[in-house]
């Protein structure tokens, strides 16, 4: 049994690889159409020379009296200090207002407001997941700038982001939001949230295939804070990266801000004892937001690397400008015939994929033709098989009827009169006659 499954898994792997190559070829051709073939990368992306990538400079604090929040490099001491000034950040907003469970909300509330302050205990798996995310975020960014943007956002530039403040109606700062970046052109801003799933559960997929409910609030807060026109939710794995496009939802964000304000910034914050009505309503809205998300596609992932910079960065600019790429290699397909061949292969692979997903037959349905008096002769069999088919666990009523009609009509053509039909045993086993 296990060998059979392993063979099927091997076939699936080949099919997935072929389809990812197809995506790569179609995307590469798109890039040529967009006139951005210099941005498209195959397996590696040198961020030092990637022309649509803007990295924040590290040493801004030495040159500016006060570094604006949005230019405060993430994971720098200043950024950690900044996060200490508020009770809620974008990544924990979901738990903090009871959108996960009441227990999670209480735990979070206690960690922030109940004296004495508890030491947060992080499990080993959570620690590994965080390290995995921090280590691979740069690879996800490389995939975004080297694969996705040249296709869907050819005229945009990726900007590394610092932090953004969200204030309540009275102007009091209540949340710090740190998007993983934004992509911008003269007219539009798109906020970015990157996730690098790390699951010890064997049955989970390496990337997300829908926006997870626990990430929706964070994504929408980032779109709100950066005043973005849309938001990209990116899920990265070593092999492939999925990309989803979300629209901003002002109503939902305003509800979240009000809830955070009431729970954590009232004159006397009260430990929650039940999930609030607003949180319950937010949960339903989150589901609606997920249904409205657009799946842009799954792209082959690429790995980031940086070469030594040859020039000093411009001190007038908060971003490090990319250097000239002297070793440009064209990876995009521009021959239409070649692309046509790839498209033919894709159709073949899709059919293979469809065949491999069809459930294997688990039962056989046999139609027997029998005499009305089954026991008229003890030495002659009373049931002659006249038709059979293989089936799974499911067979619709309409299909059953059509098959039965076919069998009865065939009997009629042979001048066999069938006055009645009987079935053995329970009705759900009707096909096992």
């Amino acid at each position: 049994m296990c060998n059979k499954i392993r063979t099927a898994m091997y076939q699936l792997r080949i099919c997935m690889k072929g389809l990812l190559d197809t995506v790569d070829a179609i995307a590469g051709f798109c890039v040529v159409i967009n006139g951005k073939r210099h941005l498209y990368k195959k397996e590696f992306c040198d961020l030092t020379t990637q022309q649509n990538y803007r990295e924040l400079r590290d040493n801004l604090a030495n040159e500016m009296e006060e570094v604006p929040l949005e230019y405060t490099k993430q994971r720098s001491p200043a950024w950690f200090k900044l996060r200490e000034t508020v009770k809620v950040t974008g990544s924990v907003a979901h738990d903090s207002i009871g959108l996960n469970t009441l227990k999670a909300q209480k735990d979070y509330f206690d960690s922030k407001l109940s004296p004495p302050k508890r030491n947060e205990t992080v499990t080993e798996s959570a620690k590994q997941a965080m390290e995995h995310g921090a280590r691979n975020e740069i690879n996800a960014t490389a995939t975004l700038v080297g694969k996705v943007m040249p296709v869907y956002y050819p005229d945009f530039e990726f900007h590394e982001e610092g932090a953004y403040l969200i204030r309540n109606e009275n102007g009091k700062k209540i949340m710090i939001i740190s998007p993983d970046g934004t992509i911008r052109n003269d007219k539009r801003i798109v906020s970015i949230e990157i996730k690098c799933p790390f699951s010890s559960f064997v049955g989970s997929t390496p990337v997300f295939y829908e926006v997870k409910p626990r990430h929706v609030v964070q994504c929408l807060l980032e779109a709100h804070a950066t005043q973005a026109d849309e938001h990209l939710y990116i899920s990265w794995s070593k092999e492939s990266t999925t990309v989803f496009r979300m629209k901003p939802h002002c109503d939902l964000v305003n509800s979240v801000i009000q809830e955070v304000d009431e729970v954590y910034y009232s004159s006397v914050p009260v430990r929650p004892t039940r999930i609030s009505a607003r949180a319950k309503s937010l949960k339903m809205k989150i589901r609606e937001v997920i249904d409205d998300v657009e799946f842009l596609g799954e792209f082959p992932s690429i790995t980031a690397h940086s070469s030594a910079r040859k020039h000093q960065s411009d001190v007038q600019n908060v971003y490090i400008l990319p250097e000239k790429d002297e070793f440009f290699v064209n990876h995009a397909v521009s021959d239409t015939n070649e692309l046509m061949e790839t498209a033919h292969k894709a159709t073949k692979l899709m059919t293979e994929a469809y065949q491999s997903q069809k459930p294997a037959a688990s039962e056989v349905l046999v139609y027997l033709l029998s005499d009305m008096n089954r026991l008229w002769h003890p030495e002659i069999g009373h049931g002659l098989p006249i038709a059979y088919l293989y089936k799974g666990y499911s067979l619709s009523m309409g299909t059953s009827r059509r098959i039965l009609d076919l069998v009865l009509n065939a009997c009629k053509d042979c001048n066999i009169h069938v006055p009645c039909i009987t079935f053995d045993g329970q009705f759900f086993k009707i096909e096992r006659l």
Partner: protein
Amino acid sequence: MPECSFVVMFDGKKILPQSADVYLMEQEDPPKLYDLKSKHEQNVSAIEQYKFFLQNVIDSDEKDVSEIVSEDRIQYTIHASKALQATSSVIRELRTSYAKKLLICSLQKRS
């Protein structure tokens, strides 16, 4: 529900075909195979439209993409986006199926 012209027996009792239908429908799973087929047809259709557009480009002797006129470029981008989404959607199904099989293998190993 179409009329059934045959007598239906259940445990030796003659029953109405309609009630047999209801009984069976309660036992049936949702028509997953049908969903699978309709999804497959949608995905293949997106690729076929994309191929049709490419064939037009080839027939017009514009074998290199730089020769495609600007109006066709917009059309190309639309068709290509749909083809990308369709292909990605198949990968998603395969990956989910692969993950399930991996889980079954792992459970079998444990037992």
